[in-house]
């Protein structure tokens, strides 16, 4: 059984422009079908506005699709009562791009990471602390960080904290919505390596949403290219990245800046 199956997902948004104009709608996601197996990292690339973040929100259950169904662990995510949904949510977590707003500035790091544990498990406070400390160690933070507040951390460290919270319940799928895009180059590598290591350790699946083909290429096992709400190309073997054929994919490929000076992309018209 596949971990996640999307069948013909459609979603449009209404634009309220003015009282006098007709209501217009924008199709953010048009007829998308996908399957994701356990332990696989699927990259979703596309320009901004291609609908990839909306797709992520639909899978998380934050947006309801107009049509189609999201089957996670064999159950239709948008057809569950709140108890079943809560049960399913354990296995479905997220890491956002904006790491600063993703942790409550008024809570200590320990409290933030313990939040999912408190929702699903009845632990004594000693047991809870033990688990939080273990998670901190997993993501490369120190024991004493547990009592600190978010303002005392850098962006990369906060992203580690977000990852710690996401893996706290040992989920099956984590949605990484531009999770490394806002970070400095060195920190990006650190986080990507951390994610790769955790994936091995817990048999995690990732949905890696990004506009950065290089980051996707570094971590993903397979790839889909999105453009204007549609999947325009799929790639199962990342070794064949250069063979992407769709014009949209080609454009994305050619926008990747070469790592050395001398190859002037700027001069091509």
């Amino acid at each position, binding site marked *: 059984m596949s971990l996640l199956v999307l069948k013909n997902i459609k979603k449009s948004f209404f634009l309220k422009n003015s009282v006098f104009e007709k209501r217009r709608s924008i199709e953010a996601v048009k007829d998308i079908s996908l399957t994701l197996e356990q332990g696989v990292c699927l990259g979703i690339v596309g*320009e*901004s*506005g291609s609908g990839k973040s909306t797709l992520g929100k639909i899978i998380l259950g934050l947006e309801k699709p107009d049509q189609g169904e999201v089957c996670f662990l064999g159950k239709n995510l948008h057809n569950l009562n709140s108890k079943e949904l809560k049960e399913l949510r354990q296995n479905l977590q997220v890491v956002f791009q904006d790491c600063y707003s993703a942790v409550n500035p008024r809570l200590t790091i320990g409290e933030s990471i313990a939040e999912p544990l408190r929702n699903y498990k009845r632990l004594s406070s000693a047991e809870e602390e033990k688990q939080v400390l273990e998670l901190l160690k997993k993501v*490369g933070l120190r024991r004493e960080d547990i009592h600190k507040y978010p303002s005392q951390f*850098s*962006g*990369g*460290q906060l992203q*580690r904290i977000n990852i710690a919270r996401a893996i706290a319940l040992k989920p099956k799928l984590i949605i990484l919505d531009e999770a490394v895009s806002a970070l*400095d*180059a*060195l*920190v*990006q*590598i*650190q986080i990507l*390596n951390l994610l790769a290591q955790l994936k091995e350790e817990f048999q995690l699946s990732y949905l890696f949403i990004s*506009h*950065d*083909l*290089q*980051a996707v*290429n*570094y971590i993903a096992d397979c790839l889909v290219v999105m453009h204007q709400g549609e999947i325009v190309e799929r790639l199962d073997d*990342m*070794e064949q*990245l*250069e063979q992407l054929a769709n014009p949209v994919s080609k*454009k*994305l*490929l050619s*926008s*990747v*800046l*070469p*790592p*050395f*000076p*001398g*190859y*002037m*992309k*700027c*001069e091509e018209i």
Partner: protein
Amino acid sequence: MRHQPILTVNNLNISVSTPLEVVHPVRDVNFALQSGKVLGIVGESGSGKTLTCMSLLRLLPENVKVEFGSINYRNQNLLECSAEDIRKVRGNDIAMIMQNPMIAFNPVRTIESHFIETIRTHLPITKRLARKVAVEYLEKTDLPNPKAVLKQYPFQLSGGMLQRVMIAITMSLKPSILIADEPTTALDATNQLQVLKQLDKLKKEYNTGILLVTHDLGVIAQLADEVAVMYGGYIVEKAPVLKLFNQPMHPYTRVLLESRLGLTRKKIQSVSPLSTYSKNNDKKCPFLDRCEEANHSCTSYNLEYREYEKDHFVRCVKIHESVGN
């Protein structure tokens, strides 16, 4: 052939006072910018690169001040001139574009009104002429349908388009220097390339000197002629772009170059995650805690900044030793 630089920064030191302490995020920064050249400044967040930029136009917040040093623009010390003079320099001579174009525009006014207002503050021309100039410069951006873009509001354009409009507005003033602080960081890859192309045009057609601040070495490789690498408030290495990429000397530069993502799937070793800058004023190598090559001589190092070959400066005692005196 060597030109006179139009902007020189000497020995710039900036301090920030917080209620608890005074920290020094920018220390001993020197560089020179020439017309028609791009100087890239690379560094991670907190390395002091943005504060350096802000200080050039005296845009520092009130708890931040330049301790000492000088910023000379065409025989004029920008740190000492009057408020009226600096206002004239801003926009006319030195322009700046920022990371997030969304917040640089007023959401309730059209692109056209931004354009015309900016042009007319700096040039004594009529509204009609200003509109013509606006269309002319917007056409140079390769944006589809420039006349329609002028009538639109900022929120109707994407981040990449807005950044290009921003550069078009800047271009119309023909500044001698453009400070571009992370101009492409908020944009996706295709938009990034468009913006870089436009900056390249600005440099070539108007002979503008560009100070390009970024953490992305790919951007630097595309555009920069000379690169300064900043770490912990210091420039740790400065060299012409080819030399820096081919013979990096400072350990930090080497780490940066090794951890570039590319389209190959090779595994990259990540460096130690701890990055804490010493905030106080002690003279200590900022990279000491993370450096894998550090040894006892590093702890007593006085942070001398030395020129190795022509135009190639490094601030590392190990390099000083290995090259010999």
